[in-house]
């Protein structure tokens, strides 16, 4: 991946991952390694949290499509390697934002919920 082209977004907007896309891959340990490493990256990179969550849903049986998506997140990280969380002074007011996609999963119609909680200007969760 060292020679990979940087990419501007961690996932393709509007395209949902399904467990029936692409061809199944036999060896899943590489995929699991990558996704596990990406999960650690979400500590300081909330911007990839959604994409990584999507990838995590196919750890048991991933396909070529999911592997491409995982590589895309890596390429996105490459283009934004200097990003991180910035904490600054501000109020101590707690703000919460959330959104749900109302049965957005193409496989089983489960919903995905996302949230962000800010303490003043700082994203904490």
């Amino acid at each position, binding site marked *: 991946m060292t020679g990979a082209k*940087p990419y501007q977004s961690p996932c393709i907007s509007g395209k949902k991952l399904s467990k029936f896309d692409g061809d199944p891959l036999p060896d899943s340990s590489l995929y699991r390694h990558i996704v*596990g*490493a990406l999960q650690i990256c979400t500590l300081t990179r909330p911007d990839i949290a959604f994409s990584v969550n999507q990838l995590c849903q196919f750890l048991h049986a991933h396909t070529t499509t999911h592997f491409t998506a995982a590589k895309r997140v890596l390429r996105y990280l490459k283009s934004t*390697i*200097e990003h991180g969380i910035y*904490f600054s002074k501000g109020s101590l007011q707690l703000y919460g934002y959330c959104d749900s996609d109302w049965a957005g999963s193409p496989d089983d119609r489960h919903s995905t919920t996302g949230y962000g909680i800010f303490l003043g200007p700082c*994203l904490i969760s």
Partner: protein
Amino acid sequence: MPEIFAPAESIPSPSPDISSTTQPSLECSSLPSRMITRSVTGSLKPKQLSDFHLYHSTKHPLKAFHTIILPPEPTTFSQASKSQHWRDAITAEYNALISNGTWTLCPRPSHKHVIRNKWVYKLKQKSDGTIDRYKARLVAKSFEQQDGIDYTKTFSPVIKPATIRLILALAVHYDWIIWQLDVSNAFLHGQLTNEVFMEQPQGFVDSPQSDSVCRLHKSLCSLKQAPRAWFQRLSQVLLDLGFMGSTVDTSLFVFLQEAVRIYVLIYVDDIIVTSNKLTAISDLITKLQYEFSMKDLGPLSYFLGIQVHRNR
């Protein structure tokens, strides 16, 4: 500094002269006119946001991309005993174990099985990739432990990421100093509640009592209950010092007395302390150093693979 990915500036983006000759024929053949796109001009550099900071680590989980050549780590005792570096490392570890009172020799018990052990060898690297030190560790073969006999409970809490971020945000807001501590040989401080017997370590078998075994008093690395024993020990010390365990996150300890507030975050043997009084931190460090051998790492800079920069 070894980095996994090259910074964005040094990524070879398609140079303008190549893209002007080859790219347009590929990219723009389907377009109605010769539109100037970013792929044509070659300006694929990401927009850099000034309010983001560099958080890049060398202990990254993806560090397999590193290409620094190091001497191979030995896998067996006979390999390691050929090198002076590793022999010194083994002796140092053995002396640390003995001075810590980790075990006492006793006759081989007939009613219990004895777990075996192994030396493992690890090269510690500095952040620039050079050799920091040779480290040997005595580990028990914990897969030989039996549930209910050699250990009962193994769960040990660790800090939640949201708590780290919350405490960092609070510290920034109140302009508190954040201090980092590291406990050396953390697992060796844990007191064992179960009776565990272990063979004598290779290379240090006591010749007159060669059939004796070690009865463990303190926990050893890789014992199944080691993290739990350590956490219980540390939390007990903190509670005795007047800290309260947070009800939200068990690895967060809070000290509230009059005007002094201290927050302590624990991730196994990495400890972060933040407080509104600088003297309170140094007091706490002195008290903890009385109990454990600890390294004072100074202001927080690197924690759990996260690099922290502070500009105040």
